C-alpha cells in the first residue's frame, strides 16, 4: 500500500514535470548480533541443535528516503497495518503532514500511543479491524508507536520532508519511480535512527539513477 501511495504521488508529480527512476542498493554489513533478551522466562533461550538459527533480520528496519530542497507536494494518506502483535512494517517513513492511518487487522484490541507525544495518537482502544489516524506535524521527528500493555508491540515513524521513500529487499535493493528530475539527497534510516550514510543523487529525465550506498555499521557512529 505504501508503494502504491508513493506511486500515486509520483504519478501526480510526473504529470507536471518529467520523472525518473532511482534503483539503488544498500550494501549492508553483516547482521548484528542478536540483542539480549528484553524479556526472558525462567530459562535462557537456546538455539536448536538441528540447524543454525536465523540471523537477525535487518532489512525490515531499513528504509531509504530521497530528500530535495523543494517542499514536497501535498502529502496524502499513509496506511499502517497492525497485524497481531506487530506492525506489518516495523519502521514507517512518512512525509510531514501526511495522515497516518493505523488499521488493526488482528483479533486483539490494542491501546496505542506515541511514546514521544502522547497527543499524537488519538486516545482510546484500537479494536480489531478498527483504525486510528493522525497527522504528522513536523518533519524530522521520530515517533515510537506502541501498546503499553504489550511491550513487544512497537513501531517507529520517521517524519521526513519528502514523499520519495522506499524499502529495501532482503538483498538491499530498492527502487523509487516517478521522481522528478533534479538533485536529491539519499538517506538511510535503520530501526530507530538515521544512519550516517547519505548520498547525493541526480535523477535524470530519462533512464535510471543507480546509487549504491554502503552502510558501514548498523548502529550510528560505529
Amino acid at each position, binding site marked *: 500500500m505504501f508503494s502504491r501511495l508513493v506511486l500515486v504521488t509520483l504519478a501526480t508529480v510526473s504529470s507536471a514535470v518529467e520523472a525518473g527512476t532511482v534503483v539503488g542498493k544498500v550494501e549492508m554489513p553483516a547482521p548484528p548480533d542478536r540483542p539480549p533478551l528484553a524479556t526472558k522466562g525462567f530459562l535462557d533461550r*537456546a538455539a*536448536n541443535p538441528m*540447524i543454525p538459527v536465523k540471523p537477525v533480520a535487518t532489512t525490515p528496519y531499513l528504509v531509504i528516503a530521497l530528500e530535495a530542497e523543494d517542499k514536497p507536494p501535498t502529502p496524502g494518506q499513509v496506511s499502517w497495518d497492525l497485524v497481531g502483535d506487530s506492525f506489518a512494517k516495523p519502521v514507517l517513513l512518512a512525509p510531514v503532514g501526511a495522515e497516518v492511518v493505523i488499521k488493526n487487522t488482528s*483479533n486483539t484490541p490494542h491501546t496505542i500511543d506515541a511514546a514521544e507525544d502522547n497527543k499524537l495518537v488519538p486516545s482510546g482502544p484500537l479494536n480489531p479491524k478498527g483504525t486510528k489516524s493522525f497527522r504528522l506535524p513536523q518533519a524530522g521527528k521520530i515517533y515510537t508507536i506502541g501498546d503499553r500493555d504489550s511491550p513487544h508491540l512497537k513501531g517507529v515513524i520517521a517524519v521526513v520532508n519528502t514523499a520519495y521513500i522506499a524499502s529495501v529487499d532482503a538483498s538491499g535493493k530498492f527502487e523509487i519511480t516517478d521522481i522528478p528530475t533534479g538533485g536529491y539527497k539519499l538517506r538511510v534510516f535503520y530501526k530507530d535512527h538515521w544512519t550516517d550514510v547519505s548520498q547525493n543523487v541526480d535523477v535524470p529525465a530519462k533512464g535510471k539513477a543507480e546509487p549504491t550506498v554502503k552502510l558501514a555499521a548498523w548502529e550510528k557512529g560505529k
Partner: protein
Amino acid sequence: VFASKIWLFLLTIGATFALTIALVMPHSANSTRVDVEHTRLGVACGVVNILLAKDARNRVDLAGSFARTPDVVTQLDSASGVDKLDEARMKQVRDVGENVMKTIQGRKPDFVMMVDKRGRVVARVKVDEADFGDVIAGRPLVDDALAGYTRDDLWVQGSTLYLVSAAPVIKKDMTDYAGAIILGHKITQDLATKLVGDLNVDVEFFLGQTEAGGSKTISFDKTALADGVKKLSGDISLDCRANHPFDLKAGNDAYSAIVARLPGEAGAHQAFYSVFVKKPEPRGTWAYFTEARENGGLGFDSFPWLLVGGGFLVALVIGIGLMLYESDRPLRRLAADAVKLAKGESERMNEDSHPGKFGTIARSVNIHIDKLGREAKSAKKDRAPVGAARRLRVVIAASAVGVPVQRCRRVRSDGGRSSRGSNDAAGDAHRFRATHANARADGACRAAHVSGDARRRHPRAEDDTAADVAVERYRAARRPVLQAGLRSVRRRQAQLQRAGIGADLREVLREARQESRRPDGEDALPRGALHRVRQGRQGRAQGDARQRRVIVASGGRFHRQAAEHAKPRQGSVGIEVGCIELGENGSASTANPAWDNHLGDDSATSAAWRFSDGALARHATPPAMIRSRSRCDSASAMMVVGRFAGSGSPRPVMWRWISAAMCGAPASTSGGSRKSSAWRVPAITISRDHGVLPVNISNSTTALA
C-alpha cells in the same frame, strides 16, 4: 555464717539467672523461630523458582517434541508457502495439533499455537480455536522460536497467566524453519501444590493485585504485597535471596510472606508470586518444655540429667556443709558450754571456742556473770557489819524457800543470876550480854519472819529490799529497847561500880554500843537497803507496810513495855522469850508442858491461853494489851516476852503478838533457880497458807540453836 550467706547469695543469683534465662529464652526462641521461618521462606521461594525453571525446561522440551512431530512439520511447512490461510487448512492443522496433544503424557498444555514461518497462527488448540491467520510475530518468544531458538516465557492472556514455551519447527530436509510451536500452561492449584511440595509453605501467583492461582487461596492484603513487589529491583532471579520476608494479614491470621517477580512478558503486568507461611504463635516456657518432653528431649539420652542432678546435689551438700560448719556445730558447742555453766562445771563460758555471734553470746553471758559477782560482793560488803542481819539472812534464805525453820535462836544467858547469885557483878555482865543477845536474836527471828512474810506476799520484791526493810524496822524498834537496856545497865553499872565491878560492865556497854550503832552514830543498817527503800521500792513493799506498822507499833509497845518492866526486880534481870502454841480454832492453848508448868506456878498466868471469838484472851486477868489485840482472828502464834522477877510466879510483862512465830520461852525459873537451862521449844513450822505467817507449833522438842 558468712560463707553460708555467700553461698545462699550465689545460689540466689544462680537461680535468678536461670529463671531469667527460662523466661527470656522463649522470646529468643520465638524470635529464632520467626527468623527460621523467614529463612525457610527465602529458601522455599528459591526452591519454587528452581522448580519453575525446571518446569520451564520440561515445557520447552515438550514444545520441542511437539514441533518435531512429522505431521506438524508437514502442515506448517505447507501453510508457510501460501499467502492466505483458509479455514480448511486451519482445521486440518488443528486436528494434527489435537492428535499430538493426545499423545502427551502427564500435564498437558492449556493451549497450543501452531505458527508458520511468517509468524501467522495457522491453528490454535484448546483456546480461540476459531481464530487463525493473525500474526503473532513480534513477540520475543515467537520471534526467537521462528529464528530457531527454544525458550520459555510468561504471557498474560486476559487475566490468565500462562507459562509459555516455544520451539521452532524445522523442515524435514533440515534446510529451513517451517514455523514454531507455542505451548501454554496455566498456573493451576495442582501445579502450585506440586511446586511447594513438602516445603510446608504455600505459594500464590498474582497479576498485579489479581490472584492468578496458587496452592492456597487466601485473601491477602494486596496493598502490602504490591508494596513488597515495588521494593524489588535488579535481577529477577535474585529476588528470593535479596528480598526479606514481611508480615502479612489475611483476616485475623498473620502470615510471613516473601515475594518474587515473575519474568517474561508477564513482568509488564506486575506479575509475581508469593511464598507464605502462617506466622508461628509465640510460645512460652511451658510450651517449649512440653515440646521437648513430647519430642523426647528430656530423656537421659538427650538431656544431661546426671549433670543437673549432680550439680543439685553438690549445691545441696555444700549448703548443708556450710550450715553445719558455721551454724549447727558452733550452736551445739555453745549449748554444751551453757550446760556446763549451769551445772557448775565451769564458772565462765569459753569465749574463744565460739566464733562469730556465738562468741558474742558467750561474752555477754560472761559479762553478766561478772556483773552478778560484783554485785554479790558489793551486797555482801554492805550487809556484813550487822551480825544480827547476817543471821537474819540465813533465816530469810531459809524461809524464802519454804524450808522449815527449825531453829529459832534461843539465847539463854541469864543463868548467871541463878548460878552466880544476884549480886555477882560478873553474873550481871553476863546476863547483860545475854539480854542483849536475846534481844538481837529475838529481833532477827522476828525480822526473819516478817521478811519471809513479805517475800511471800510479794515474791517479786527483791529479797534484799524486803530484808533490809525488815531489819531497818526491827532496828528502829529495837533501838529503844537497847537504849532502855543500856540505861538499865548504866544504872546497874553504877551499882556495880559501887560494888567494884564497873570495869567489866563498861566493856559490856561498849560492845552493846558497837552492836547497835555504827561509829558514825548512824544506824548500822545497810545504806543501800535504805536508799532503795527511799528510791521507790517502797511501793512494792507496800504490802508489808501494814505488817511493818504492826511490827513497829508492837515494837514500840514492846519497847515501852520492856522499858517499863525491865526494871530489875528482886535482883533478877532478863528477858525471856518463849513460844506457846495456839490452835487454829482458838481453843487450843496448850503450850509447852514446861511452859505450862511455869505458867502454872502463877495462878494468874497458869490458866490456859485460849482464843475466844477470835480474840486472844485469858480468862484470868488477861493483859489489856492482849485484849486490845482482838483483831487476831486467825490461828496464829503469840510471842510472849516475859521477864521474870527474881522470885514469884512468872508473869508476862509484855506481849507482842504478831502474825509470826512466837519465839523464845520463859525460863523455867521457880524460886530463883533455873529449872532448865536448855529450854526446849516446840519446832516451828512456817507454812504459807495465809497472807500472814500462820505458825503451827508442834510438840517436838527441837532445841533452838
